[in-house]
């Protein structure tokens, strides 16, 4: 990917993410036999929120919300600029750190519980992400995203189980049911987001749109240089994630971590082992 394109994509990512989010709400509504909001609804919400009276708990907390947006944006650029894929994964942790510290910094039970759960989410999905990156390295011979996008090999053909594992860990990244314990609206009312409002909530809200772009770009990488297949994979995984979201109930944190560690990680390992066998 050229430098200009990555800059443009990064700058546009809130719009792309917003559109994806709007589309997702329609898809979910149709799955539930509802009409759903217009596709631009997230942007209407955006302007409404900008207009609201800004209230906050304290400046430190509000500032962390804004930093979460900037951090996520930066980590997306790290991914899109074609650098090292592992570095991009760990930059995502960095951006999450701001949300977590923000969540911890207020004396609100829901926010503190949510921030801790946010960390447990990371505990669950990060090993899967790193192992997926290792798998991609194994078949393409590079950790650089720019090189990955140029290869002729199509990683998903040799890494089907890794792809499945990755796909099943996406709900944890995007906080979708059954792995939405960090937000859990019926239980902890949005977790770390709860204490944000007005403009500051807007920052957190936008950061989540950017995370959509971040997560689905990873899916795109599984097609290597075959962009058409990449697009198909992204659309497919988008539908699957929403289908799972609609069809399942929330699990508790222990079930989430066990699912990721004891099912998804072995799945990746089996794939890598088979690959080693097949190649040798």
């Amino acid at each position, binding site marked *: 990917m050229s430098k200009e394109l990555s800059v443009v994509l990064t700058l546009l990512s809130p719009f792309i993410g917003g559109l994806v989010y709007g589309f997702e709400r329609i898809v979910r509504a149709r799955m539930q036999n509802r009409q759903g909001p217009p596709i631009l609804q997230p942007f209407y919400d955006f302007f409404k929120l900008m207009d609201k*009276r*800004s*209230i*906050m*708990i*304290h*400046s*430190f907390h*509000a*500032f962390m919300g804004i*930093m979460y947006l900037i951090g996520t944006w*930066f980590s997306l650029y790290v991914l899109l600029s074609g*650098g090292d894929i*592992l*570095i991009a994964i*760990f*930059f995502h*942790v*960095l951006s999450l*750190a*701001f949300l*977590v*510290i923000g*969540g*911890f*910094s*207020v*004396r*609100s*039970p829901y*926010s*503190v519980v949510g921030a*801790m759960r946010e960390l*447990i989410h*990371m*505990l669950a999905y*990060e*090993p899967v992400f*790193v*192992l997926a990156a*290792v798998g991609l*390295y*194994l078949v393409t*011979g*590079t*950790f*650089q995203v720019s090189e990955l996008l140029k290869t002729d090999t199509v990683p998903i053909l040799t890494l089907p189980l890794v792809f499945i594992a990755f796909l099943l860990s996406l709900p944890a990244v995007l906080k979708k049911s059954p792995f939405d314990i960090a937000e859990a609206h019926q239980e902890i*009312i949005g977790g770390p987001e*709860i*204490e944000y409002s*007005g403009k*500051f909530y807007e920052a957190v809200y936008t950061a989540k749109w950017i995370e959509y772009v971040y997560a689905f770009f990873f899916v795109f990488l599984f097609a290597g240089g075959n962009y058409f297949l990449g697009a198909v994979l992204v659309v497919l995984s988008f539908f699957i994630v929403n289908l799972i979201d609609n069809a399942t109930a929330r699990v508790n944190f*222990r079930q989430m971590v066990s699912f990721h560690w004891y099912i998804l*990680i072995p799945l990746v*390992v089996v794939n*890598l*082992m088979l*690959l*080693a066998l097949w190649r*040798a």
Partner: protein
Amino acid sequence: MEQIVGALIVLPWIFAIAVFLSPNHRLRQILTFLSLPVLTYLAFKVWNSNLPFFVETPHWVETAVTVFDYLLLGYFLYQGIKFRSFLVSVLAVAQLFLLTWVLLILPHSATPPIYVDRLTSFMYLIVATVGTIICIYATKYMEQENLDRENRFVAILLWFLGVMNFAVSVNNIEWFFALFETTTLASYILIRFRWDEISVKNAIRALWMNQVGGIAILIGILFAVKYYNVYNFTDILKINATAISMIPLGFLSISALVKGAQMPFHKWLLGAMVAPTPVSAILHSATMVKIAPYLILRISPVIKGTLLAKLLITTTGFVFVAAGLLALTQDNFKRILAYSTISLLGLMMLTASMGSSVAILASLLLIFFHAVVKALLFLEAGIMEKEFHVKYIEEMRRLIEKAPITVFFIALGFMSMTIVPYGIFIAKWITLEEASNFISHGAYIASIIFITIGGVILTLLYFKVIGVISRKRGEFVSFKLEKLPFIYMFTTGLYVISTIVGSLFIAHFSTDFVNLVVKDITGEFANIKAESLTLITPVSQIYDWQILGAIILLMIVPVSAYFVYFKADRVYEYTCGENISLNIGTYNFSCISKIEPFIETIAVALFVLTLVLGGGLV
């Protein structure tokens, strides 16, 4: 050069005696402060000299070491009898027996007993910078605790530095045993320094556990002499161990695991926290436990690729994960730090056992940055104890309101152990990529899983603590920076600056400095390059703008977060409209405490496996 190496060993002892005898607190502080520039200068002199070189010693030194050995073990035996510790006495007697045996069969060797290479000189630099700063800090700490015993305390710390310098420069393993046990003595004296019941109990435990390491070294020497007729590190590096016997190397690795407080021998390091905090700082960062990765690095070219190395990787990788998990259940700040040291020592030894140039580079980076950061965190623990009277996580709630600087330094210390772009992260990252190189044969996937899961558990742990200390009330508006004594600010400030500068210039630090050490250990440079701030590894690179961006995000942002002020209306936290008094604690992860016996069982099993299978005892 011989004189400089001698000075590095003897000067700390002279400083120690001078500090011990000087009557005036101010004079003691000045003397301790002098040790920093003097030792650093000498260490740099050695670094810049023509390395590696051997040093011949006169014959009386040999005799002196032997006499010292017997005196030391006799002292251990005396302590065992005095405190009625069966284990200490029995182990001391066993060591006396084995030592006599060793001395009887030791053949004549033409190899000089002192060998100084880049690795030694690297350790000198760490001791000279990180170690002496802790001593400077200790003068203030003891002033607040008990001025009468300050001279004794600081003198022991300084003497310890000399011992450590000696330990990393010896080539003769019999001498290494003597110094290994001298560091045990130093830790024993320091841990029981407060002379209360629990201090003595923990000191005795540290004593017997470390003696197990001493016995392992002695048995290792016996087997090395039996099979190869050698007892010097440089000679051991020349043998072809896989062909004949791995037993000596197996026992040496075991002694490293014990010294490095790997499970199941981790309790002695946890017990060390009862001593004054500078003791923990010096044990965890510059001296003592760093002998463990040092020893593995010394023998890593021989054990590379053997079953022993693989079992070491498994054992230390397991400890990396398990110690991190157990740390989650702790509520004492120093215990959390201790567990995280155990965990990271596991990672250091894991990378050292992998043995490839890049892995060795990662191990050295870990040793350096861990020394700096752990020293910083322990000094902060001491500051919190003395200035704010908090020891437990529960008491640390809302510390940010009272002590923004302390909180910022602690947060920085924790972040620099997990997050991009700090040194420890870089080490973890290049290890991951190095392990991925082997994975096409199906090997090393376990180490990748260990490294990722262990790393993410440590992240969880550190953010749990940062979360507690950074919580504040909504009505608290303006931060007022706390006033700390000058020495506290100076010492911690030095560590903070070196962490940040070291991470910023990590590329050049790795290529121009650490890579020379790698060359001395493995015989070839790690294949990395530096272009301005960009670090280029064999398969990938971390760009300058990434490093800069992350440092700006992590540095300037938290600082400005103290001073940013938004104009917005204030509300109270949402509590479903109920007016309840809040007392927010943190998670104690009791679900992990339940599996602690299980974890320890696995640790024992792996430990035995390393010795039995790795050492080839079957």
